[in-house]
């Protein structure tokens, strides 16, 4: 069964491109437009008895940003241990520290290198 990645970004272009890269590598993807939407998608998945293997999220989004999303995810028992990779244009140490403190697994920078993303995802995929 193929692995499922949840891609969270408010930009359809970005979502599309990340998903595209993941599809090429044989992953299945789900998409969400912002933190809140992601939580809804996660709940839906939970009710269907599934969950994403990895979550890739943008930071700056309406409704709920990526950092808040990570915090929320870490509170949910079902998703506590799902790796969350942050994918953002912000590249300052302070921002990264905020991400780390919130419970993100890794920090990737836009414009992204799909090879790098794939490598990182393979690395963090639960066995």
């Amino acid at each position, binding site marked *: 069964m193929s692995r499922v990645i949840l891609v969270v970004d*408010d*930009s*359809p*272009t*970005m979502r*599309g*491109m990340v998903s*595209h*890269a993941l599809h*090429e590598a044989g992953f299945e993807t789900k998409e969400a437009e912002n933190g809140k939407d992601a939580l809804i998608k996660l709940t839906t998945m939970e009710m269907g008895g599934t969950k994403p293997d990895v979550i890739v999220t*943008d930071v*700056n*989004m*309406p409704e709920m940003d990526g950092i808040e999303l990570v915090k929320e995810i870490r509170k949910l028992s079902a998703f506590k241990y799902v790796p969350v*990779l942050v994918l*953002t*244009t912000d*590249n300052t140490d302070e921002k*990264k520290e905020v*991400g*780390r403190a919130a419970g*993100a*697994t*890794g*920090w*990737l*920078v*836009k*414009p*992204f*290198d*799909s*090879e*790098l993303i794939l*490598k*990182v995802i393979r*690395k963090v995929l639960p066995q």
Partner: protein
Amino acid sequence: MNGDYSKFLHTFFEEVTEHLSVLESGLLTLEQNPNDVEILNRIFRSVHTIKGAGPMFGFTTMSRFAHKVETLLDPLRNGKFSATRQIIDLLLKSADCLKMLVEAAKNGTVIDEDKTVLDLEARLETCMTIPPPAPVTSASRTYQISWMPGEDLFQRGLNPLKLFEEMGRLGTIRSCMLATSRLPDLVDLDPQRCYLSWTCTLETDYPREDIESVFEFTTPPGGLTITSLSSCSPAAQPTQKPDPEPAPPIIDEEEDPQLAEVFFGRKSDHWLGAILVEQKAVTPVQLAKALDRQDTLRAKTKEQKAETSMRVDTEKVDKLVNLVGELAITQSMLSALGGRFEIEHLPILQERLLQLERNTREIQERVMGIRMLPISTAFNRFPRLVRDLSIKVGKNIQLLISGEDTELDRSVIEAIGDPLTHLLRNACDHALEPPEERVAAGKPEQGTIRLNAFHEGGKICVTVEDDGRGLNRDKILAKAIEQKIITGNDTLSDDQVWALIFRPGFSTAEKLTDVSGRGVGMDVVKRNIEELGGIVSIKTVTGRGTIFTLNLPLTLAIIEGMKIRVGQDTYIVPLLSILESIQPKADMVKTLIGTGEGVNVRGVFYPIVRLYEVFNLQPEHKNPAEAILLILETEGERVVVMVDEILGQQQVVIKSIEENFRKVDGVAGATILGDGTVGLILDVRGLVKLARQEQSIAV
């Protein structure tokens, strides 16, 4: 960039276009509420997305510029300082610049060290450090002029030196710098093309417009920036340009970094580490440039294909799929019925056919719906237009927009942009009085223009309403008599008087309001709207204001028609133009000397057009008292058309006759009727003209 993302380019441009309009409308709202954090956040996100996604396609300049805008927005968002008029101005200019960069990217042009961009970047930076001082109001001002002519400058026979000489006449040129950054390598250099650009400082008493006019027609959009050095950064020196960013961010992840760097578990001081530094040492900016060019070239080839696609709400598509499913079911039921048909099944057959008709109609409506867009797509640019105009004409004007969700065919939306712009411009320029005059007339100092769109009986109404001085009947009449359009003896109804301003020869009618006209008359507005099958009408009260109403069809391809019969032939009359139909009594029909045959309807006398005479047919009735009269209206003029019978209403698809045959007077097009025959669609405007000709013959 790696991987083939070019197929996302179209999505990217669509998304960016949306972000740009969010940016512009957001900034305008911000001007009203400078501390609205929600709007600031929204603007910020839009810029942020452009910044983030741009480099994925190699649009490094766009991304870098967006980054600069973002750095100005950030302190605003955090409340460090609030958005003053100057800052909003600068941000609006930046939005324009961003738009230009996006356009350039769409066309595959590489804009790298463009002056406009660099200037604005510099201003964005200075604005952030120095709080903007009050503008200096001395007569003599210093402007910095950055001019990047189009590459075809020489081919168009223009000499840059002449332009500088002309500019010199406006004042003193303090400095002039030549930029050669656009020069290609010698092998690629085409001596007939202009690769140069200039930056000058000019001290002058003349307004900015005069400087702009020097460069008129020589400059592609965005090629000219005139910055008043005495306004935003007073300390600004006659410009040494800041060095362009040494390395665009594109290379940041070109190399495969250590995976360890990504994870927080292991501490890293440098994000991409030594590899990047090495990489930079080998190929610095050139790599980025090469990538940039390669990607934009790729973008260019993709773009041509993408042009014709459109974005449709998923919901609309889903509904359509659903309906097509229903259609398939109905079809299979029908074929089952047809397979072994017996006469007692007739009621079932009729029922199924009814269902089929319902399906078809609904699918038709939905498919038309796919072409529909909210009219806000056309309205969006107007707040900015009115804002800029109000500054220009020195009036305080508010624009209130309502009904922007009303949906219209996208081709109609594209076509009404210009007429609406013209109406709004007129309202700002001429209709609204200067503040003093308004106060003297007991009106609020702020003038109001309302732009409204709504559905009305199967068509769309768009109204442009101002609370200005209104049209002046006497002045219009005087002008019309002066231009010999009417004679002093004619008695005209108000509607007929207002209709005069739409006359082609009457374009100077704008001088009615004492401000010089723009040379483009109201006749163009009217023609544009009528080409769409729409109607323009005017309501005005002197001293209180004017309302222009545009009645527009929902779509261009299909009209609601009324089928009528003359002798053996069926014609279609556009339902929009039918006011009423009557069966006249014999004493209502009269022939008057001077106006020809007409009918008296409730005291108003209308000329009669006998359709059988126009088309040379054998009618059933020749006596108007036996026939049916349709009262039709177009452009505020009415005409009565005599027909034999009204057959009923039908939606018809318009097919052009002109394209397949030639233009036929009195006929707007043709359609295929239910029985497969061709029905001609009457051109009401043409009929009115015919009626008028007959009147003059009768005279």
